[in-house]
């Protein structure tokens, strides 16, 4: 009998689900190879179906998205119990991802922002005997690994078909990689970047430009053109999709295994190449990066050293 | 540039130093600089206050500074060295000692006056030197100096401890100003020594001896007049020459001017508006140097 696999989404955009579909005909191989027992976005299974399964009966659960509410937490724990292997699928599950930027505020702040004076949602609504409830909305978004034990991580926003394929291969194959492995090369993106050789050996920048301000040259290193490309600090594996598309890397593959805080390192590398020793001038150059947290922690705020903004 | 400065006359400008204010106003008018006198100003806090109760001295001068701020002045000109010193001292101490800053601040609030804000305290000598400049003054000279050589006497309070108006040990700006209008000055090594200050009123003979030394040395160095920047100095040096003549038995009768009188004269002010008639000593020289025929405006080309 075919091994069982499950897909689930927590706080995510759905892109990771798309990525699975994007496997094209490979999806069929997958379908042939495995038995999909749970995939809310595509197939009609219910929570209780999963509850009904014996523990460890699922070979692998692919969970994407971060944990932002009590329902996601519950499902994550449930799938953990039922699965032999849990794969954090995509950067939201791995590091917190875009939803993690909500950690610059908290539940109160977000609701105030989103609903303003409108009708704010209530946890429990009762109406002649019927009741509707919403999951608890946490103050802080966390990555999957912080609430359940995760076996493997698939980086990316979303993971590319290539690394997904490789991951499936690995899981179905005989020798599993060591627990905790991030299933992508442990090297920075420059290694895969077609523009690598065009970066000058001693690059120093007098100013940073933002993507909407310039039409970047197609060949030369984007950082050398003043664009805040985070490739040097970002794990390889995507084959430099964005640079190939003439856009700077924004870091969705997260850091290498040797870096504890993606943002801090990216910040250090970027600031270090400013071509000025004068505090005022340096400040002026940096004004071109108006939102450091948004730039450096775009995908990794919850898993960063500080984790979230400290609210008064 | 017709600049306006806040103006704090200080008490002596309305007493022994009337001639100082008269000549100052005349001179500034001639240079079209306007002085806007503080409304309802009060004692600067000098002398008795400062030596008996520093606290209230600071409050008094803080009030003046605060009034200046209220009137929208960033710069406050005061001709009196004592006023200048106390106002600066208040700012300085408030900046250095939080407790003083607090007591001053609180009292100002109580009197609902604006807080002690950055007002620059200026002295006319240094305003003329820095803001107007020697060249511009030179260019406005309309009279030849017919008097003798003069000794520029700076006294103590203007240049010490705050060295903003001039160099503390060998100030020269008054000399430079007078030379600019063609007045010969002597090398006067006593230019910052004590004039006797308030001692002339308290331990009289000591005070008088001190300004006797100043006068004698000026004469010895060939000066025929002394020029001052401080009302108290001017008064001390001017008022006791008769007494000195009696005791020291020396033929001493030397005019003692305010620098503003000499400058004002060179720039065309008339004797009365410069308060030249108010002098006690050296009237003969004054008659001669500032006589009618000398007053006729000569043209420089």
């Amino acid at each position, binding site marked *: 009998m075919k091994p069982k696999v499950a897909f689930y989404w927590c706080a995510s955009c759905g892109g990771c689900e798309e990525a699975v579909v994007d496997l094209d005909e490979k999806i069929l191989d997958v379908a042939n190879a495995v038995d999909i027992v749970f995939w809310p976005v595509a197939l009609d299974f219910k929570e209780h179906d999963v509850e009904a399964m014996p523990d460890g009966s699922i070979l692998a659960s692919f969970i994407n998205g971060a944990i932002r509410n009590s329902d996601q937490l519950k499902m994550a724990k449930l799938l953990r119990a039922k699965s032999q292997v849990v794969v954090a699928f995509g950067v939201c599950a791995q590091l917190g991802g875009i939803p993690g930027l909500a950690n610059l505020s908290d539940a109160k702040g977000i609701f105030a922002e989103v609903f303003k004076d409108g009708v704010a949602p209530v946890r429990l609504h009762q109406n002649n005997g019927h009741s509707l409830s919403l999951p608890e909305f946490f103050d802080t978004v966390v990555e999957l690994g912080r609430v359940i034990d995760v076996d493997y991580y698939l980086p990316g926003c979303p993971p590319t078909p290539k690394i997904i394929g490789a991951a499936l291969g690995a899981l179905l194959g005989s020798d599993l990689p060591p627990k905790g492995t991030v299933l992508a090369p442990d090297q*920075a993106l420059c*290694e895969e970047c077609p523009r690598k050789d065009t970066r000058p050996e001693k690059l120093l920048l007098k100013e940073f430009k933002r993507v909407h301000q310039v039409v970047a040259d197609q060949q030369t290193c984007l950082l050398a053109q003043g664009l805040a490309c985070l490739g*040097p600090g970002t794990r390889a594996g995507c084959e430099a999709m964005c640079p190939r598309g003439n856009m700077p890397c924004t870091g969705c593959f997260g850091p290498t295994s040797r*870096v504890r805080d993606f943002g801090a390192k*990216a910040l250090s590398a970027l600031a270090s190449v400013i071509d000025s020793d004068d505090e005022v001038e340096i400040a002026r150059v940096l004004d071109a990066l108006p939102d450091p947290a948004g730039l450096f922690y775009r995908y990794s705020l919850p898993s960063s050293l500080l984790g979230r903004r400290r609210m008064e | 540039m017709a600049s306006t400065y806040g103006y704090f006359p200080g008490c002596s400008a309305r007493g022994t130093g009337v001639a100082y204010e008269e000549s100052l106003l005349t001179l500034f008018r001639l240079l079209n600089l306007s002085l806007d006198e503080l409304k309802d100003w009060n004692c600067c806090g000098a002398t008795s206050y400062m030596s008996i109760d520093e606290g209230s001295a600071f409050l008094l001068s803080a009030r003046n500074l605060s009034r200046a701020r209220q009137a929208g002045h960033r710069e406050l000109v005061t001709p009196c060295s004592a006023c200048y010193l106390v106002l600066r001292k208040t700012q300085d101490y408030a900046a250095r000692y939080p407790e003083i800053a607090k007591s001053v601040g609180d009292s100002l609030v109580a009197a609902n006056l604006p807080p002690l804000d950055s007002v620059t305290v200026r002295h006319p000598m240094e305003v003329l030197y820095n803001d107007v400049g020697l060249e511009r003054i030179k260019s406005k000279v309309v009279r030849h100096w017919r008097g003798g050589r003069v000794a520029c006497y700076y006294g103590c309070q203007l240049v010490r401890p705050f060295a903003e108006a001039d160099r503390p040990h060998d100030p020269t700006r008054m000399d430079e100003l007078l030379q600019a209008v063609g007045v010969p000055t002597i090398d006067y090594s006593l230019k910052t020594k004590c004039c006797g200050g308030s001692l002339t009123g308290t331990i009289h003979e000591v005070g008088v001896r001190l300004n006797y030394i100043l006068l004698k040395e000026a004469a*010895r160095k060939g000066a025929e007049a002394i020029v001052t920047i401080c009302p108290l100095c001017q008064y001390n040096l001017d008022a006791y020459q008769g007494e000195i003549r009696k005791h020291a038995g020396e033929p001493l009768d030397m005019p003692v001017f305010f620098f503003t009188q000499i400058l004002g004269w060179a720039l065309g002010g008339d004797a009365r508006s410069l308060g030249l008639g108010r002098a006690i000593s050296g009237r003969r020289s004054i008659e001669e140097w500032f006589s009618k025929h000398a007053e006729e405006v000569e043209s420089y080309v």
Partner: protein
Amino acid sequence: MSKANGDIRIGVYVCHCGTNISAVVDVKSLAAYGATLPNVVVSREYKYLCSDPGQDLIRQDIAERKLNRVVVASCSPHLHEQTFRNALATGGLNPFFLQMVNIREQDSWVTEDKQAATRKARDLVRAAARRVAWNESLERDRIPIHPAVMVVGGGIAGIHAALTLANSGKHVYLVEREPTIGGHMAQFDKTFPTLDCAACILTPKMSAVKSHKNITLWTYSEVTQVDGYVGNFKVKVRRWPRYIKEDLCSGCLECLKACVYKEAKFPDDFNVGLAKRKPIYISFPQAVPQVPVIDPETCIQFKSGKCKKTCIDACGERHAISLQMEEKTEEVEVGNIILATGSQPFDARRIPYYGYGVYPNVYTALEVERLVNASGPTGGEVVLRDGRTPKSVAIVHCVGSRDEGTNRWCSRVCCMYSLKLAHLIKEHTGADIFNFYIDIRTPGKGFEEFYQKLLNERVHFVRGRVAEVTDWALDPSEENKLVIRVEDTLAGIVRRIPVDMVVLSTGLEPQADAEQVRRLFNITCASGGFFLERHPKLAPVSTFTDGIFLAGCCQGPKDIPDTVAQAGAAAAEALALIDAGFVETEPNAAYVMEEVCSGCKTCVAMCPFSAIEFLQEERKARINQAKCKGCGTCVAACPSGSIYQHLFEDQQIFEEIEGILTNA
């Protein structure tokens, strides 16, 4: 990167340092606390850990308790890290398994509250214990020492250092900015307290320098660039043209006589302006090298091109004079550098109330040195600028010394040279002499005796800082005199003392360009601006830059005996390195994990020593271990965490932080 793997066995050692530490930090409880920390198998406190028995304690435990890591909580690593590393090494443990905790300089000595000090010590020990678990076994590299030495400054300090080195067979480059060596000492007449003539003891050493086969003497030159590090410095020296070829000039000085200027009319620096020189001149008769200089600022030929060039005619067949001579730059390699750049006298004009520059009869001590000097502008006659011989002379001590307004330090030499000048002036003129002093400081061999001698010579001493030197006269006795106004703090009265001549005993200051020189050689200045020695007691001639040593007044005011002693010490330090043949480096170089480097090149721009090369083949960065100085800037910059630094690994520092902050 190291792993805290295997069985970590840490020994913690807390030093009392007599009572320096134990009087403030509770060493007993600290040691007891150390014992409770993870991986710690033994924790002790001891009176003096740096002593032999103290070190034995550590060696013993390494042997008996099988320690493989050691934490020493004592003084600053700058003082004793080496000591304890040796203790580990001789105990059979790799020296870099040591972690020091600075609980003296940075705790017991700066903290009043004993509990707080002990808490601080606990945090630091906890941090060290965590860190040391990750320390690795490292080997030192050896850098060969180039045997040549450069001595900068040709005063008595530089001369003595150069001769000492040269005599031991080492090659020395002696660089002097002036046209001659000799420095200030050459300007002096007699030297205290023995009163032997400065020239008589200096000039032989000067000519010894000139004739020494191991000394390359570059006068009228200055160092413009210093690269490299201990063992192999590369130094560039700019040599100004003196327009007279040293190799051809015989020093006959005919050219001086022949100069179209019959009268000398330009201020003569060597005589501090008291005499005049011609555009072509020699600083003083015994100058070394014995070669004149042409000053293009004043020479007619250079100014107008219309000179008869009589000097060239006078030189005749020698053709030593070459007006086409141009500035040139020499570049040499040396293993060590000795800085003997000296000091400058305080500018008396900065104290206006002493009237220097205002009253012609106020002199500085250096001017008077020239006046009393037989080869000086007046042939040794002490006469005033108007030619009169002074009948009364005031010597004002501490001008620009021990003074909040100018320099706070005591210049150490002024008391003695003032006494010397008092003696000499009295000898020359028989004048009444008044010394005005704060304290008389005569802490040297024969100094106090000299002072007593002066007292018997009826020289007057008035204790009190002079208020002012002035020309205003109260009565006829003061007419045409300079009046000293001073509070006589012994008599308790204010005195006015009229004199004919005033001598200002100016103190010593750092050279005007000490700041640039310090940067050039990458060393530090102390607060006063004099060069900072590595340790005031234990390394008085070393600097924080290995291979650069200090001698003489550039390190602080001192007299000739001390200067010469220090110069000898500096030479000895250099010799020690040269004869050892190599220095061992601190193994703290950074290195790239090439298999994971992505070749982003961020690091390449970080290194000011171009130690990081980008390998075109592999398309990765590599750090030249010999060139790396171990600052770690590239490590902090590497965005993929692929650069590491021995002794300062990320892991080790994270452990330290963790240790500091995990509350006990």
